[in-house]
């Protein structure tokens, strides 16, 4: 096995085109953001409850799913089948093993809270999720690469250079933050281009 791995590694160096296929996966439940965020206009933070309070936005607890779906049972057979699955998880008291799509590497400290509190809209990074039927690597609007992060921090938003001028948050239906400057004591994000802000 070791020998195989070694040869494989060597081959990949010589022929970089031999890229391993990305892990194929299916989500345990065919969840549709189109139905939830689109047709029913549920705000993002109704389910992703930690977005403004923590570094992670959070996957909704099963109780949140059950909260609605004990009443909402779906309009067609396909939906009903998937909702049955959700209720099954709740009854078995089992968490739903979702597959992670937006996966920031383990060595990165990214904070949803900081970006949301400053006034970013979820859409700016995640794209218009209301139009995404099933989240997969293909539907990711952004690569979540370091270059993409740094691009924003350096050029796109004046946040990196001084005063805060974060965009208004539309998804939560919130008002523009008029006192944005007060979010930061000095109205400045010190070291937002510092590697150590993200590399933990």
């Amino acid at each position: 096995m070791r020998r195989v791995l070694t040869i494989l590694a060597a081959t990949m160096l010589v022929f970089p085109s031999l890229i391993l296929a990305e892990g194929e996966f299916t989500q345990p439940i065919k969840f549709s953001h189109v139905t939830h965020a689109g047709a029913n206009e549920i705000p993002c933070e109704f389910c992703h409850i930690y977005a403004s309070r923590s570094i992670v936005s959070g996957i909704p607890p099963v109780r949140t799913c059950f909260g609605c779906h004990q009443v909402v049972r779906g309009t067609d057979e396909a939906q009903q089948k998937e909702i049955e699955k959700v209720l099954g998880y709740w009854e078995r008291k089992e968490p739903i093993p979702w597959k992670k799509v937006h996966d920031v590497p383990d060595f990165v400290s990214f904070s949803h809270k900081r970006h949301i509190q400053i006034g970013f809209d979820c859409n700016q990074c995640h794209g218009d999720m209301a139009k995404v039927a099933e989240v997969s690597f293909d539907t990711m609007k952004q690569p979540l690469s370091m270059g993409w992060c740094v691009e924003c921090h350096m050029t796109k938003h004046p946040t990196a250079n001084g005063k805060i001028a974060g965009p208004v948050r539309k998804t939560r239906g919130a008002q523009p933050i008029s006192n944005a400057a007060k979010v930061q004591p000095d109205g400045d994000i010190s070291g937002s281009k510092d590697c150590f802000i993200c590399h933990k």
Partner: protein
Amino acid sequence: MTKVNRRDFFKVAAVSGAAAAVAGCGSDPVEEIIPMLVPPTEYKPGVTISFASTCNECSANCGMVIRTREARAIKAEGNPHHPMSQGSLCNQGQASMQAMYSPSRSKGPNKKGAAIKWDEGLSELAAKMKEANRVLYIGRPQSGSLKKLLAETLAASGGGDALQFDMMPVSTLKKGNEIAFGTAEIPEYAIGEAKTLVTFGADILDSWLNNQLNMREFTRMHAYKHGEKGKFIHVSPHMSLTGANADQWVGVKPGDEALIALAVAGELLPSSAMSGNGALKSYLDGFTTDSVASKTGVSAQVIKGLAKDFNQGGMSLAMAGGNTAMSGEGTKLQVAVNLLNAVAGNLGKTVKFGADYKIGGDSAQSFADAAQKMKSGAYQVVLIEGANPVYALPKDSGFAEALAQVPLVVSLSTEEDETSALAHMHLPTSHSVEAWGDSMPRKGVYGLQQPAMAKLPGYDTMSLGDLMVALAGKLGAAAPADYKTYLMAQWKGYQKDLGLGGAFEDFWKKSLQQGGQFTGYSSKGANLQSGAYASAMAPKGGQTGLAIVAANSPNHRAEGTNGNRTWLLEIPHPITQLVWDSWVEISPDTAVRLGVNHFDEVEITTAKGSLKAGVWVNYGIADNVLSMPTGLGREVPFPTYVSTRNKSIFLPHVEMSSDIKIKPLKVGTNVMDLMGFDTDALSGDLQFVTAVSALKATGETAYMVTPEGQAHHHDAAALSKEYTKAYMGDRSQKGRGFAQSTSVEAMNGHGGHEGDGGHHLRHRHYTTDLPSNTDMYPERAADVAYHVDWSGRDKPVYYETNKWEMAVDLDRCTGCAACVVACYAENNVAVVGKERMSTGREMSWLRVARWQDHNEETGDLETYFSPNMCGQCANAGCETVCPVYATYHNDEGINAMVYNRCVGTRYCANNCIYKQRRFNWRTYEFPAPLHMQLNPAMTVREKGVMEKCNFCYSRIREGKDLAKDMGREVFDGEIKTACQQTCPADAISFGNIKDPKAKVTQIVNTTKRGYHQLEEVNFKPAVTYLKKINHDNKKA
């Protein structure tokens, strides 16, 4: 030729490697993201939540705050509300996380390994308990509600005895107080108020009583403040960490301590309020200074000096105890020291009664008696919880044989150990981090222990309280629903006792928030009884001949619970700096006389057995005395990092974690194999000193490892006197001045040595002539301009809001290394094992360096400590040599390390003059379930990456984040590094140097004894050291 910028070069280089990099990223496996079913209201993933609780690693029961992330405990810290530990935690308390996630933890109820159901096991146990005439319960000391519940459960079974297992010889202290004062209480020693402290054997900074409370009080008394500091003298055969912090260490034979105490009392009697006591006078006349001096070999001058220092009008304090005092004269020593305190007028002033301190357990004799009863068939059921007497007691106690005679032995221990291996049934209890409980370490201290997390997944355990409740129920007693209900009922009573009104819910909530209820108590003095100077109490003095002492240290405890905590094995012993080993400490003269050398392997033989260990020659041990560390010789499941070198075909191997085998590894030897089961005649406590019949070299060189390098490396210039004896080697700073010192006199303007770097230590053998205090590197105008432009500013701004700096007060630091354990816990520092330590591959971000320097005035060796961490140098050598910009200076003054940018050239480590950089020579494993302790706020580093201290940047990030949420700046003291948080001596100050009001700024700006290590190299480290202050330029 066009000039290629370093960054541009790497941009080009990156493109050619990009495709390969993509391949690496693409193979990243898809992770699962599992939400909670119903999250608790306060739960937030990604946010640290702390729970106030109580530490249960030893019977001191210090206050603890358990930090949790994603609902699992990751770090133990001190609880600042707790009046005893006052916010700090010792090495063992820090390592409670390794106890919680111990790879030795029992997976679930079983009978000799065959899994059973909880109900089945408990029913069988209850039935057998009912049948039995008498039941014996052996457990850890309990001072809270569990003690009552246990008594009720045993009563329901039809009668039983409960024994508390702890090796700390406190029965001797109690017996001594009973004889001298008529009360068997453990008093409060007000160390902090004493002007002079003399300890007779009592290793107060290592293991005697509550070492956190001791250290807090000790620094209050001994740290330099307002132009003065107290004096501390340690009288003991073994210097230990305690003696290394003393101003004077008086080495005596084991058993001679009491003679010294009485001689000092005799010197003080004429000026004492008790001088009129004729019986006392005639008793003390039997211990004149001259007779004691000739008997003990301690000069009359030293004894007279002790008496002079001790005469403080009631503001001095003498303490006795600890393992080294247990030579058979232990109780007599306690009585003699009590007498000394009485003569000096200290009773009621520095020795206070009325606190009803609870620490330690029952005497060893009571376990021998229990073993006798087991053999005679008096007990049909024996329950053992959290105690390991089969390991800890000497073999001839007959405990293991007695246990074999008992029809049913049930272990309730959390971990599998030597004792649980002999049990018929193992019903594993949860660790205290997962369980409810409480403790009352002294009057007025009600410590509450709450579960900080759910039970460890995959481990089917039951908390001790719940187990007792279930057992009581099965035995037919009126049992509450669960132990929490029981506990709350008890606390309703405490609310009444404390006289606190209001609703119980509020009281309970407040208790949970602050970790309990804490009030004071009214203290009282005591009167010396005539029994204290009865002829029966007259000490005979120690025997002559070679003797061995089983010594504790902050990392070593006779109970053996620390023997399988990899942090405590990997972190160097404070004095010897040895890791992963047992050793035998021996004085240079004795080594020469016995013909053994430093690092020789020797075989030690006593009446009870023999074992092999390496010799560690040290001046800090009396002649004719050997010392070995306790608590070792246990098995640790540890990864075997088998090297795959020279086996690859044409590329380095991809080392897979499946290559790593977890193997039980025996660490050191059990010193108790040399000890007989001899107890103190008066108290019944075990003797930790025994005679050695032979010591001879085996002819082999011992494989002993210290992170400071092999001891055989000599600095020829420094060799003189002791250094040459038995090839002890030079452990000095070689004139480099890492730990510097000055004297009280110099600080007060006398003696004229102020500002001279450790003037009585060896002078530096090189000089520096810096023209000015400017940078070592010329101004790089173009470089600066480039960065100013890049950042979109008009002019360069250095350290905009914060610049983090640290001050380390060497006068406070005791060298206990609790900070090092905290650092390992906080920063996911890998444990590498003995072999890798021996090649200098230790990963410790913080180390406490121990130096033994020559005092050039007295010619004696003196011990100094300096905690060394990365200095985050403003002019760092590492930053400029990194070819890939993986390490750089950030605008908060942190020398940041970007792991995934690092390519592992190790240039930075070579260029660091402080040896603070650590390279991952491979991907180190955290054997399950230890990996669950890992702090998610810190990257777990992999092979090929450099790492080092970053002033706990994850904590800085967290603190700043919290401040931002509130729209304010970080305030001083809000962010504490892990080492600072746990330091019982408050030696480390940390903060923002740009804040003029910050404690660290005030210290750095106002101190007259600040210095930087290796200042002449002009690295400009952010760590300012404050010189150690000695009395008369002398210390132990």
